[in-house]
């Protein structure tokens, strides 16, 4: 791990060097070195308030580091962002294709009248890639949570991102839809070499996809493969209490640390 982190010549999709984030006296994390290679899938785990969402904000350029450096390939315009599914007002005048279109150029000024034919082709392609063509013209608020999250994936991918930030995207989805959405993310990173940072309170739905884990607890953190990090010894050291990691078939269960797996998810925009 240390050898890999000290190698500064390798610039991956994401590189954090000696990153520190603190609010006043409270240090969320310090000395964080993290390189994420193109196509790599990194799960970001940890209890509430451990700075997972703040890490997202740092990578998105919404939050400056207190110390250290952050590098994101292609700048923050080449980041795709997938939030958790949330209820959408059924009366909202917004179709699936509009939601996806925002991922392409929603941040640009003007009306966007020029180049709308090319835009439509790109949006159609992104919709087809996630199997959302059938309901692309329906009101977003009338779609199921799983259908909405597929649109979210299309929205994040339509801008051809080099880095994909996922903030609890599987939350409130049933297992079948969790599979659909995580498979879409997996396919993308393998096909296009997009690096994935996946914030989650539940590692099991994505465990087969995870290359490495970043586990944050109270300013302490560990980076490594699931086999390295998700052990009783490592997590006990992180939580500074006796934590038992139990493997049941293909699943990992963490016992003993309250709120290890049950913490409340929150959102990049909620803190504004």
């Amino acid at each position, binding site marked *: 791990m240390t050898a890999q982190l000290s190698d500064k010549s390798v610039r991956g999709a994401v590189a954090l060097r000696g990153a520190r984030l603190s609010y006043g006296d409270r240090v969320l994390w310090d000395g964080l070195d993290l390189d994420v290679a193109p196509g790599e899938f990194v799960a970001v785990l940890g209890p509430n308030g451990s700075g997972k969402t703040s890490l997202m904000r740092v990578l998105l350029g*919404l939050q400056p580091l207190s110390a250290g450096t952050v590098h994101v390939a292609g700048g923050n315009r080449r980041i795709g962002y997938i939030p958790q599914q949330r209820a959408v007002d059924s009366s909202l005048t917004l*179709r699936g294709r509009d939601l996806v279109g*925002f991922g392409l150029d*929603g941040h640009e000024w003007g009306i*966007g009248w020029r180049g709308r034919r090319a835009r439509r082709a790109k949006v159609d392609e992104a919709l087809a890639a996630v199997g959302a063509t059938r309901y692309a013209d*329906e009101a977003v608020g009338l779609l199921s949570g799983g259908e909405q999250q597929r649109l979210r994936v299309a929205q994040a991918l339509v801008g051809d991102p080099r880095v994909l930030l996922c903030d609890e995207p599987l939350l409130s989805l049933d297992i079948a839809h969790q599979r659909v959405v995580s498979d879409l993310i997996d396919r993308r990173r393998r096909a296009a070499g997009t690096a994935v940072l996946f914030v989650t309170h539940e590692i099991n739905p994505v465990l087969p996809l995870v290359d490495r884990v970043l586990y944050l607890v109270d300013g302490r953190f560990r980076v490594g493969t699931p086999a390295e990090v998700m052990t009783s010894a490592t997590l006990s050291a992180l939580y500074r209490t006796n934590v038992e990691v139990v493997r049941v078939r293909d699943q990992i269960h963490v016992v003993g640390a309250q709120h290890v797996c049950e913490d409340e998810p929150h959102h990049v*925009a909620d803190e504004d």
Partner: protein
Amino acid sequence: MENFFDLSLTLDLLGYGFVRQMLIAGAVLGLVAGLLGPLVVTRKMAFAVHGTAELAFTGGAAALLVGVSVGYGALAGSVVAALLLGLLSRRDADRDSVIGAILAFGLGLGVLFLYLYKGRSANKFGLLTGQIVSVGSTDLWLLIGSSVAVLVVLALIYRPLHFASVDVAVATARGVPVRTLSVVFAVLVGVATALSVQVVGALLVLSLMITPAAAASRVTASPVKATVLAVVFAEVAVLLGILLSLAPGVPVSAFVTAVSFLIYLVCRAFGGTRSRAGV
């Protein structure tokens, strides 16, 4: 009452300059209100619009009292209101109560100003309910100039504003200046509201800004179609409302709101196509 729908009287009145000015003002307003409306509805700002209109009334009443153009007074009042309201985030749990508190105070002030005003009483009434004669040619140029300014700014910020209005989490993540846009938009709404006050009066601005957009949202999920429909509905309501009000000499707003509400009812009735029920 027998001249309620007197066609020849209506045609006669159309020959007057002030009536034509009113129609031009109405058409410009319909366009502005129709374009802003869908965003106002999406951002759930109906009550904020109402509050802004009440403060436009306060500004207008103050202008009457000191003897300057009502248009400028309404504009000043509603821009101040919009800035106040725009600084309150849509997430703020107490936004509604803050608007309520501000508008109640503003309305009270307006009542005081009107009480102190010793001029024509029709001017007082017109401020609340709209009056054909209240649009003079100076006001008309102010209205057209302000409308053009509103539309230019709206065109510049439309895409990120729309993004932030429907999808605030991802818009924030993509670097859209969500807070700034919401203040700018509140000011645009404030200007448009002040302009509407001159035609439909402070009490009934919602009939131009909210009702057409709400009606449009019942029949289409496409933001572009909803905007086009909202403009059409607002134009029909304001122009037909003005024409109908000519012969009986009833305040404009009575007919504008009636037409607007009728369109809304029809759209609600046919809006079932959007529902996914049974699919």
